[in-house]
């Protein structure tokens, strides 16, 4: 336990040191953190008016409405804030599912080897080849869900395969290593071997994959809404873009904020994630760190 604490301490120290050197990564991390905070507290601080007043449509920015108003007279900033949670929620859920499935299959496959390994890897190969986005769009349009959990599951339907493959090859090489051999000779059960011995060693790789999976899931999720192939229900950035495009917001100056606000929100988040990933990459990849 103490070991874990000290390792975590060292991790944060390293993270801090590296971020200090990489301004982009630091800003990225801060932005991601900010979005997370908004996702958690957003619905409590911003309130979407239940009263719709089309007469107030597309008001220019003001103190009351820093980003102006949308087609129904609602505050764009509030919509943006309230719309953060569904996006982040699904993105993170999907990444969690992707990572857990990928890690479990990869570790088990790599550790067990033999027949189980071949079967699991053939399945993985199929999912690795299927164009994920096309499958996600097809399934999402059929299932017609508005539940974040189901949507996240759909989004991760093929994404886990790459991670499973990578984790497996790491597990394979770890399996041969001394400490796993030692653990095996002590007769530790599979669960222990995988959980205590193998998992910590693929951790860094998984962490980076997790962040990229979040961005991937957000990309696909927003895309589904922007295309209008998943049920349009509630408020999120994708739905905002979809409705704004459909209602011609792109073509008049005063309505453009309604369309561009969610677009900018997505772009900032995605860029921030990628830059933040860079510092983790440096942290876990000593060779890159030297450079």
């Amino acid at each position, binding site marked *: 336990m103490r070991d874990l604490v000290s390792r975590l301490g060292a991790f944060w120290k390293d993270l801090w040191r590296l971020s200090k050197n990489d301004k982009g990564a630091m800003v990225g991390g801060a932005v991601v953190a900010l979005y997370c905070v908004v996702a958690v507290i957003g619905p409590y601080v911003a309130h979407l008016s239940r009263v719709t007043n089309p007469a107030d449509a597309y008001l220019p920015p003001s103190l009351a409405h820093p980003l102006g108003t949308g087609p129904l007279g609602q505050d764009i900033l509030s919509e943006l804030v309230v719309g953060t949670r569904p996006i982040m929620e699904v993105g993170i859920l999907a990444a969690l599912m992707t990572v857990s499935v990928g890690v479990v299959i990869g570790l088990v496959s790599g550790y067990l080897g033999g027949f189980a390994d071949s079967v699991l*890897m053939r399945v993985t190969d199929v999912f690795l080849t299927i164009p994920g986005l096309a499958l996600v769009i097809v399934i999402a349009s059929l299932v017609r869900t508005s539940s974040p959990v189901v949507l996240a599951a759909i989004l991760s339907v093929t994404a886990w395969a790459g991670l499973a493959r990578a984790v497996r090859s790491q597990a394979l090489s770890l399996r041969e290593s001394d400490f796993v051999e030692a653990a095996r000779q002590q007769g530790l059960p599979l669960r222990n071997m995988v959980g205590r011995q193998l998992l910590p060693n693929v951790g860094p790789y998984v962490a980076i994959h997790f962040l990229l999976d979040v961005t991937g899931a957000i990309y696909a999720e927003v895309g589904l809404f922007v295309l209008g192939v998943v049920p349009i229900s509630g408020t999120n950035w994708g739905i905002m873009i979809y409705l704004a495009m459909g209602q011609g917001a792109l073509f008049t100056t005063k309505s453009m904020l309604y369309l561009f606000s969610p677009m900018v929100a997505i772009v900032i988040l995605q860029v921030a994630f990628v830059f933040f990933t860079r510092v983790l990459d440096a942290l876990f990849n000593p060779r890159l760190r030297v450079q």
Partner: protein
Amino acid sequence: MSRYIARRVVASLAIIYIVISLSFFIVRLMPGNAVSALESQLSVQGMTTQQIDAQVNAIYAVTPKAPLWRQYFTYIGHVLEGKLGRSIINQSETVLHIIANALPWTIFIVGTSLIISFVIGIAIGSALAALQHTRAAKAVSFVVSVLSSIPNYLVAIVLLYLLADIHPIFPTGAAYSVNVTVGFNIAFIGSVIVHGVLPIAAYVITSFGVWALGMKGSAVSVLGSEYVRAAESRGLSRRRLTQTYVGRNSMLPQVTTLALSVGFMFGGSIFIETYFSYPGIGYQLDQAINSRDYSVMMGCFILITVAVVVSNFLVDLLYPLVDPRIASPGGARSVADRRAEGTKAMPVGGSTA
């Protein structure tokens, strides 16, 4: 080598078979059951039960009342014969014909974008690696990372706005103009190119950075590797060093990613083509989804997958040329492993989700 090719052929066929099966189960077993949806759609159109059965059979190549296993084998048989059924919306159109009309355009767009962004990306990536500690390289790196993190459909919206709407420079909505004769003539080819500019630009803007960053990363690590210094110590010429030792090896991971990105770009064509109303397979898939035309939907999905499998296969054939270890027995890791490593390198624009 021949064993390697045989293995790849078998693997590709197996994946195609599995995807066809998958499409059957998606149509038959997914919530929102496509077959019963079609039946009710047809009954609203005023068809009789018997007509409906005949239609369902023509459209999905299955008989809804037959046992599931028989439906499955009939379906597989039909698909393997190239009978993908008929469109629900355009019942006089076969799915195959619809797809055959659309697929060449997608291949044109995806292929051209891939080549352009690959070439630009590799060039920029190599330059970034060579100049890695300069201020200019850092600035370019920043811009490239930002561009490659932007979702391609958002870039499409901006392009649409700037170059098709506000300044109607490039046309949208078709693959060529109504005023040209289809055939091998300048007017037609010019028209095809002009109509392809926006979709290709949307792809290239968001994907060249993926190649550039990937190339930079691998070139930097190759430059730092022992064998490059070893080659240097042998007094090899600069050209030999950069081409054979640095260039070729930095390209290896990129070639691997190529296979992955083909799949991604075919998937992304749904966004790009829909926004520019470009009549490729992605546009077709979007239209099918919006009209709940399940047979076209599944046909597009199967064909997109087949296109990806085929292009993966081509890349796999190509790969031994750059990495001969692959084809030699016991020489190297499997292609799939290489790919899995590629997935990590794919940033947002190239997520596998």
